[in-house]
């Protein structure tokens, strides 16, 4: 090997090394410290600067409802665990009649993907333990914040009986004071077909317009009072009227909103 070839080889090698070091950037400290320790520290640094896993549990409604027909305990809670973009999202709601019977109980387990600054696309399953017979649904939903600060949660459901239904929830918050907050809420449930076994008819069912006034002793803990009007409409209402009950009605509610 001539000295020329040797120098040429060194040049090629150093160019390659430069390329290599460029591809593995942010490694200047490897010249001063154990590269393995630096690699571990770099990894830890990345994880702790934007890649954290966080979580939320919020019971938006843990409340007692008083109506002229019957009283009930209502719960609606959701929680998520995950990164900024990918989350496991769990939702549950239900109703416990004061006679000691769980009237409705539903659990959703969803994968939630942030698809835009204010919206998450959600997909998963919903399992209705009550009323019987039990139903399992596929869920495709969109949850997020609409312009003008409307908190939205909408979903399409396809049941194991092949019935399609949809749900839209919208909430708004008004600060009366820094801790006293008025929250209008609308929930619409829409069935695409009859489910005779459940006594469910096509059209709007279980839809409510509500107003709650809460006081945030801490942001995390807020008791509230409110009113709720709604019930079943269209064919579901007809089915209920046949059994001699009022399909719609008023309720006075009192409860607690907590998150942690």
């Amino acid at each position, binding site marked *: 090997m001539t000295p020329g070839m040797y120098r040429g080889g060194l040049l090629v090698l150093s160019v390659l090394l*430069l390329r290599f070091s460029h591809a593995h*950037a*942010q*490694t*200047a*400290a490897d010249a*001063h*410290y*154990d590269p393995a*320790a*630096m690699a*571990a*520290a*770099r*990894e*830890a*640094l*990345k*994880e*702790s*600067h*934007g*890649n*954290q896993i*966080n*979580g*939320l549990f919020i019971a938006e409604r843990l409340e007692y409802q008083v109506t002229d027909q019957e009283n009930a305990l209502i719960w609606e809670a959701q929680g998520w665990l995950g990164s*900024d*973009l990918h989350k496991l999202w769990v939702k549950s709601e239900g109703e416990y009649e004061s006679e000691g019977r769980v009237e409705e109980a539903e659990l959703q387990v969803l994968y939630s993907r*942030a*698809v*835009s*600054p*204010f919206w998450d696309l959600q997909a998963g399953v919903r399992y209705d333990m009550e009323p019987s017979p039990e139903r399992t649904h596929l869920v495709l939903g969109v949850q997020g*914040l609409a*312009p*003008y*600060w409307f908190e939205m949660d909408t979903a399409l459901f396809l049941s194991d009986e092949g019935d399609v239904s949809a749900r839209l929830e919208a909430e708004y918050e*008004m*600060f*009366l*004071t*820094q*801790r006293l907050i008025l929250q209008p809420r609308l929930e619409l449930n829409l069935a695409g077909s009859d489910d005779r076994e459940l006594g469910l008819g096509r059209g709007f069912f279980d839809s409510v317009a509500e107003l709650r006034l809460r006081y945030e002793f801490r*942001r*995390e803990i807020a008791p509230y009072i409110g009113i709720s009007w709604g019930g079943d409409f269209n064919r579901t209402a007809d089915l209920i009227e046949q059994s001699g009950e009022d399909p719609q009605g008023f309720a006075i509610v009192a409860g607690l909103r907590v*998150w942690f």
Partner: protein
Amino acid sequence: MAAAGLNGALPAWARSGLAADISGLRAQGDQVFDLTVDKSPCTVDGREGAGVLVNGQLPAPLLRWREGDTVTLRVHNRLAVDTSIHWHGILLPFQMDGVPGVTFPGIAPGETFTYEFPLRQAGTYWYHSHSGLQEQSGHYGPIVIEAQDSDPDAVEREFVIVLSDWTFENPHRVFSKLKKMSDNYNFQQRTVGEFFREGRKKGFRQAIDDRLMWGSMRMNAADIADVTASTYTYLVNGHGPGDNWTGLFEPGERIRLRFINASAMSIFNVRIPDLPMTVVHADGLAVAPVEVDEFQIGVAETFDVIVEPKERPYTLMAESNDRFGYARATLSPREGLVAEVPKLRERPTLTMKDMAMDHSSHGSPGVRSDTGGEHSAPSESDHAVMNHAAMGHEEMDHQSMIHAGMGHDGMKHGGMNHAAMGQSSMNHSSMSHGEAESSPAHHDMHDHSAPSQTVHPKPQTHNHPKGPGVVGLAMNPVNRLHERPLGLEDAAHRVLVYTDLKARSKNPDVRHPDRELELHLTSNMERYMWSFDGLKFSEVDEPITLYKDERVRLTLVNDTMMPHPIHLHGMYFEVVTDESEFKPRKHTIVVKPGEKMSVDITADAIGDWAFHCHLLYHMHAGMMRVVSVVDQQRPA
């Protein structure tokens, strides 16, 4: 006094009244200092807590050094987790800079790491942990480096004033709460009552339009600070407002106050009613003296001011920029005297300018319009050639675009080809074109108070990833270095602005920059995501590469609605307040919301350096990069 009981747990320099001693931590041998990091108890405003403290003290010991010396610091870690110390603002070999994962591996539990570096500068600096969120827990302290030459700012007395924010909550809990509900610490929301007060004052039409405008963008005009006095107690030298740190002086003395903002998240507006302050140093370096009555100090900035108090007590008032809390101290000729503590001023609200949508003042300061603000602009700068297509409209989320603030009235629209704007594909449904008619405040095209330029700059482009982490793109960001900070616009006294700062002597490198880099400050407050150019640090593999000794102009565009104290390790920014050779050199610069400003950098420090927003939870969320200065010439 509460302070008397407190003094035992405080370093000598931070003690109140007669107990104060600013001679600094005693060296073990020749400029060798021992610093031990441990979880230690501390007391804030009478309440017991625990911090991650250096030598058991909140704040950490004062390190008083001499320019030209080489210092050795043995840092012992008694924590159960890694720790580190970063020497903020100190020019040193990068492997001594103290950022785990960038410049060294960090200091493991039970280990001792020895830092050693020569001191090439004088002035007021500070040090803090760069590990986890330890900085929030009290891991910070002051550094004073005495000049080798005689000090032209010699005074009879000096105090170190370390401002900071303390919480009894676990900092990781604070961060997690911000991710859950980003506005949970805000107890100054716009209420229904405020709406009616505003309506009666300015007219309901305007109050409604204003609410609709902010609502349409899902932005909160009352979002001034992420973390507030609802959890923070603001400290002066480790003393809460109730503890009332007191500095004693003899009447007639000139006193130098070395201000350091060692907060995790809090920007302060500082004033001493009835006592003018002459700013003589900024971020450690001498500036031409400028007398003010109030200045804002961003997180990590330092300012030295000189005051000459008379024989009476004074209140040193450091109001958080959202005005929900304050740090307070007293300067007094005798112990036990206090002056009146001023009331907190009204919480400011953000404006169109903060979202970079106000066309009222284009361009850079110093270029004054001589056409009386009339936008009879030269043709090449007219809107006739404003290429809206190049604004990347097709990629923009128009739900967050409002044309009201563009102040169309009075502007030449003649040649503006709307058809070419590709608006056919735009979602007009949520765009409030109509608002221009109804909000006179936004019509103020000709803001004579601020220097303006008739020439419209090129429309701002956004060549960076968008996606869920990026809300709002600055359409018309402007240079705001000459502007007062938010909430101080109308203060009836002298307020420091960045253009007031001039280096006292000519800068060492006055070459014109060879090239310009542009970096955007991006965020989604709702998801509490913070990033540069739409990417969190965790999503980036490549550093920002600079080549040895090159001069680079770094232009920062703030697409967010919040001021960000941006900090580069290892090298100074020359803040482009003008094109003179006396630009102020800073290690940290607060970039205002909706601002586009530049700093010049001489890439003379080989190695990898952290570059980040110094709001701790923004950095933690990913608003960070590595700047890598490589020992190579820039490829042609």
